[in-house]
């Protein structure tokens, strides 16, 4: 994952002048790498959110100090490093924070699969499972997204419940491997419904 080196100079000048739209664009540029690394660092979703918000609020509040001729990436990452250090130092002294981090550190990947298996993520799931045979994919989707029982799915697809079981297991394993292996997520088409 690449981190943009330097936003366009006019963009930085607009940010410096307090244009919120420029701020939004800068956030769009850096949000994904920054969110990912903060999450990996503090190993807790809620704390990563707090930190990410604080880092960018700091950028907004100190925007007048931004020099468009100097490295914005260095500026941003210096702010983030300071804030992350301060947070971790605070965590080392506050038992409650420590306990939450210990708890979430090992659970960070758990539940992602369960959360993903939701009707509204149908497109994402479809693209992730693209490499599987059609029937395996359809059966898995029917069971996991549409809520068909194994028996109902068996009737619908004209196969045995044993085969349904195999398909579901195979696709589950595929999804798990996919999620735990390094890489990017597929981009989706913008979804617009006209009815």
């Amino acid at each position, binding site marked *: *994952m*690449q981190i943009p080196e330097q936003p366009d100079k006019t963009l930085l000048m*607009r940010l410096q*002048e*307090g*244009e*919120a*739209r420029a*701020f*939004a*664009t800068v*956030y*769009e540029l850096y*949000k*994904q790498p*920054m*969110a*990912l*690394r*903060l*999450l*990996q*660092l503090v190993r807790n*979703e809620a704390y*990563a959110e707090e930190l*990410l*918000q604080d880092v*960018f*609020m700091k950028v907004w509040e100190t*925007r*007048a100090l931004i020099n468009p001729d100097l490295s914005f990436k260095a500026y941003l*990452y210096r702010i*983030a*490093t300071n804030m992350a*250090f301060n947070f971790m*130092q605070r*965590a*080392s*002294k506050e038992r409650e924070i420590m306990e939450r*981090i*210990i708890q979430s*550190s090992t659970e960070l*990947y758990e539940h*992602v699969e369960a959360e*993903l298996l939701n009707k509204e993520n149908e*497109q994402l799931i*479809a*693209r992730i499972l693209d490499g599987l045979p059609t029937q395996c994919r359809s059966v898995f989707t029917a069971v996991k997204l549409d809520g068909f029982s194994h028996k109902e799915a068996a009737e619908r*697809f004209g196969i045995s419940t044993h085969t349904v079981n195999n398909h579901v297991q195979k696709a589950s394993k595929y999804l798990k491997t*996919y*999620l*735990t292996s*390094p*890489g*990017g*997520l597929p*981009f989706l088409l*913008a979804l*617009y*419904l006209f009815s």
Partner: protein
Amino acid sequence: MFVLGVNDGTLAAEQDIKQLFERYRSGQCSAEEIVRLYDHFGIDANRAVLEERIADALANTDEAPRALVYRAQQVADRVGARLRERVVANPNPPGPRPRSLRWLPYAAAAMLAVAIGWWAIGQRLAHDGQETVPTLAGAVDIAPGANRATLTLADGRSVDLSEAQAGIIIGSDDITYQDGVSLGLSTVGAGGGTAMEELVLTTPNGGTYQITLPDGSRVWLNAASTLKYPSRFSADERVVFLEGEAFFSVTRQPSAGGSMPFRVVTDGQTIEVLGTEFNVSAYADEVETKTTLAEGSVQIVNQRSGTVNRIAPGQQAVTREGHTDIRHVDVAQYTAWKSGRFHFNRTPFGDMIGQVARWYDVEVVYRGAVPKETFTGKMGRDLSLMEMLGLMDISDAAIRLEGRTLVVQ
């Protein structure tokens, strides 16, 4: 709090930090190890080493597990929403002097790409012709297709049908638009009286039209398609000929022997039904003929081999030369066009671009291999070509519009 011997800012502490930090970042630390790592933060002498580790971790560009990437996306989206609120609510907080009060709503730019997408939709033009229209950026765009078709009578006369109308009705003694207004054709040519004449309804690229046949069955004709049908059906069967794509909603007609069959003859398949809804795609420039069943039951005869298959709702019969395959499909994907939508679901690039080319009346030229990507998503067919392509996430292929030619590189 302190672990003996390692928290004193020495080389030993530095090594302990480096080693623990790596394991911690990849989620391999035990609870005790996490506490030990954090304990290092309590010693001032460790600050430089810890900050260096943090800076390295933040600037890391290695690929992370996808589950973490997914989580990070959600974190970034939620924070984006909160930043928007805070910045809109308090655009100029006290602080180092902002030099200007120039202000534009953050909301409009929160997600740039999406905003542009919505802009495109908001800017939908009142397309009434298929001329090229200039966009704001100065580039040339192409309007979407519309209600366009030509009706050819048995005597060779042809009539361009009104674009203000969506369909025609073949009555027993007149041909009218759907709102009842007569096309004003003489009864003989229009198929009135007792003569059985062949009529032809043709849509161009970028055209679609509906027709109600003499038996009340309705047909939606997609772009670049031709339907041949008689002005009156015979007493024992109903037969129409199709090249291109159409959706049929066939009414059941009682007859002496039960129900009167309705046949759609294409180059690859003959589809025989009694009363049902189905979509047929039989373009001459595509190797496969596909019939997708929405309701009821249809029988498919392979024109080459003569093999007969019966399909159930949710199934599709795909004929390629002498072979017919039956598969389960998402029917909505194949009938969305008649409701004015593109619906792609893991659709190969070639199929996707074929639909686009027919609807926008453009030619597709490949300057390299056909991209291997598949496409998933739905969008309105009333978008202009550039709006539509802008919403597609075509990452492997660069598409350029030159006149009415889409160049795929």
